[in-house]
């Protein structure tokens, strides 16, 4: 009996000493920012799938903006309004920021069905799942933003603000040989659209924010929902340069000085984004 109780005591000591180390963190709890990397690193596209009746979405948008503060131009944000929570509802949620491309991706990647907010980060996937919760965004971004770039993208914008005609030239320069066919996707965004938003973060505002500023909103695609293939089927080789030109009429209802173009290059198989770039209509 005594032997067994001793054994029990030893086991408990082992449990106490060995297993339950705890990391008590003392202030400051947040790290300071500072840009990471330079122009040759892989930039990151954070697609924030959101909707105006999604109560948890403002706090996710805040996380995205905090990452923008840390990584500056190396991270590009895009708010994709899609799915149930983006549908127009009773007043004041009358605005419809959905797009054909956004709805297509939302259905294809099963995002709003899994719940909003969710984000895609360079469309990387884990176990076939492409989306991440807002709490995973920062570590996921950190894990790929340090990668060396396989390609460089440049966007030349020629915009006539009277005719609202947009001429674009996107140049892709391959810094490494790709492992498969690539596609180029070109999109247009409008920043700072004011409209109603449901919210449950008291640090952001009341439950219904009538004049919420929707940031980096996807407005439409310029070359289709899935873009177009560029280069060879087997993967472009290092050193090659490909140019693509596009014409586009900017919707007169959009505030052109808030609009920007996003271009990204992605693997046709697997959808992972190789490189992404952004340029404003009016610099």
């Amino acid at each position, binding site marked *: *009996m005594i032997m*067994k*109780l001793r*054994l*029990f005591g030893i*086991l*408990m000591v082992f*449990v*106490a000493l060995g*297993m*339950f*180390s*705890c*990391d*008590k*963190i003392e202030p*400051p*709890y*947040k*790290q300071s920012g500072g840009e990471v990397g330079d122009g040759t690193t892989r930039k990151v596209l954070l697609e924030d799938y959101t909707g105006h009746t*999604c*109560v*948890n979405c403002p*706090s996710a948008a805040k996380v995205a903006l*905090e*990452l923008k503060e*840390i990584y500056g131009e190396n991270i590009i944000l895009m708010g994709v309004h899609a*799915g*149930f*929570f983006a549908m127009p509802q009773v007043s004041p949620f009358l605005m419809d920021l959905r797009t054909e491309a956004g709805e297509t991706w939302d*259905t294809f990647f*099963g995002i*709003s*069905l*899994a*719940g*909003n*907010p969710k984000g895609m980060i360079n469309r990387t996937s*884990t*176990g*076939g*799942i492409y989306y*991440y*919760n*807002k*709490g*995973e*965004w*920062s*570590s996921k*971004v*950190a*894990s790929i933003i340090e990668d060396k770039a396989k390609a460089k993208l440049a966007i030349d914008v020629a915009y006539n603000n009277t005719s609202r005609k947009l001429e674009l030239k996107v140049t892709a320069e391959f810094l490494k040989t790709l492992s498969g066919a690539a596609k180029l996707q070109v999109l247009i965004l409008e920043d700072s659209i004011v409209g109603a938003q*449901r919210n*449950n*973060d*008291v*640090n952001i505002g*009341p439950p*219904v924010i009538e004049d919420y500023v929707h940031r980096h909103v996807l407005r439409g695609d310029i070359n289709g929902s899935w873009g177009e293939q560029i280069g060879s089927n087997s993967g472009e080789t290092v050193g090659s340069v490909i140019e693509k030109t596009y014409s586009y009429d900017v919707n007169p209802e959009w505030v052109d000085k808030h609009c920007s173009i996003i271009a990204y290059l992605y693997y046709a198989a697997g959808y992972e984004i190789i490189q992404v770039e952004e340029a404003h209509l009016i610099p």
Partner: protein
Amino acid sequence: MKRIFLAFILLFFVIGLSAQSLLDQSRVNGSFQIDGQFYMPDNELGITDSVIGGRKMGLNGFGNITYTLGNFSAGMRYEAYLTPIAGFDPAQEGNGFPYVYASYNTENLSVTAGNFYEQFGNGLVLRSYEEWTLGYDNSLNGLKATYRPVKGVNIKAVYGSQRYYWQKFERNSRGIVRGADAEVELNEVLPSMNTSDFRITLGGSAVSKFQRDADPSYFLPENVGAFAGRVNMSAGKFNFMSEYAYKINDPSSTNNFIYKEGQALLSSLSYSQRGLGIILQVKRVDNMSFKSDRGVTGNALDISFIPPLNRIHSYSLTGRYPYATQPNGEMGLQFQLNYKIPKGSTLGGKYGTGIALNFSQVNDIQRLAINDSTAIGQDGTLGYKSDFFKVSDHIFFRDFNVEVDKKFNSKWKAVVQYMNLLFDIATIQGKSGQEPVKANIALTDVTWRINSTRSLRFELQGLWTKQDKGNWAAGLIEYAIAPQWFFAVADQYNYGNKDVNHRNHYFTGSLGYNKDTTRIALTFGRQAEGVVCVGGVCRQVPASSGITLTLSTNF
């Protein structure tokens, strides 16, 4: 050559005998289930071909096999969600063997390798479990050992990673869980208490999660520990249980990355005698979401479990607004009284009358700013201060219900229930800005036993509210031919919807057949739309229309 041939024959004979002996001692159990839904367009509910999006059918299925030979057992479960039925997380899509284990059990020692489920105490610091109907599974994949050094002392130790849909555990992908629990029944260990009426059991648990910090924004704890202590005492007709849990700083997506410690207290006092049962339960939860991945919200990777203190309603309208536990903070109580008015009394009649009275209420905890310059719940801070015994005025949920069941004679019996509900739809379902739902719900459930095998059951329910989707009525008629067949028709009618275009009927027709341990059920009709919010992520459960088939069997 001949000798070798004879040796082979002898060897096969011995193996054959052993194999026969093994087969005789072996036992195999199993169960299978397939839930299928076939979707159809339904313009009235807004379900068009484009909404269905080509996914005309959802199929969830599993097969469970357990093999036992003496002290050894092994088992596996195959699952296939191809594609998952509506309302299940799309991340479920896939097929494979998510649950495989081998186990060796003796009187004092048990060891399991592979996947397993486990619960320490009430689950406040560790509970892994599976709930097929919710599509929930947070099983641990690792090793578990249980040891009983003396009678009345039980020690458990576990470590592993948790299931996250079909995503394989990889380095840095999610956390590792390690835990131990010890329970001592003093009446067994101390000879002086062996025969005492006063029984007491003490227990303690410790669980640690390890997840690397790769976050550029915060300094995050890589090892997060949670501890719990519990006591269970009984004397005569009284029983008292209490468990307290504490968790160190665990900034996560669920708590908006605050560094406050977590606490939970769960207590219950009950009294029971023939014909009477009374139970009073209280709980306080403060920042107790504990997941093996700090970035994951929603219905996955929970290490801890906060037990609900509410009646789980089984009728369609009383269950229309179910409460979801708020791990970030809540204080709740539940009182339940069950009384059987004795047979032969005026109110009891020939068979007695059952009365069940239940009240539960859950409020938010009180939160105060940590200083003048920090907002409550601000990320990267301690978040807030909270007095352990102070309750916020903010009511999340209140349910008062009374149920009377009465058997009138050998042919007729009835259940009558009334429920008064307060449901904070903004918090629980994420519909911020919407008024809390205040509803009165009443129902009657009458069964007419036609003969020894045939019976008819009628349900009539009403839900009256000025909030959310307004008033509902529901009815059901069920005809059963015991023990094999049942047929039912039912309707839920949202006649009080403020939008007249959405005053829809949700009708269903169903039939079922049972044969031994096999059950087949077929339902045709509509399912109403809803929103499910868990841990800060809301998911729309879409309205659907079509045919549902369930086939299950076990052996």
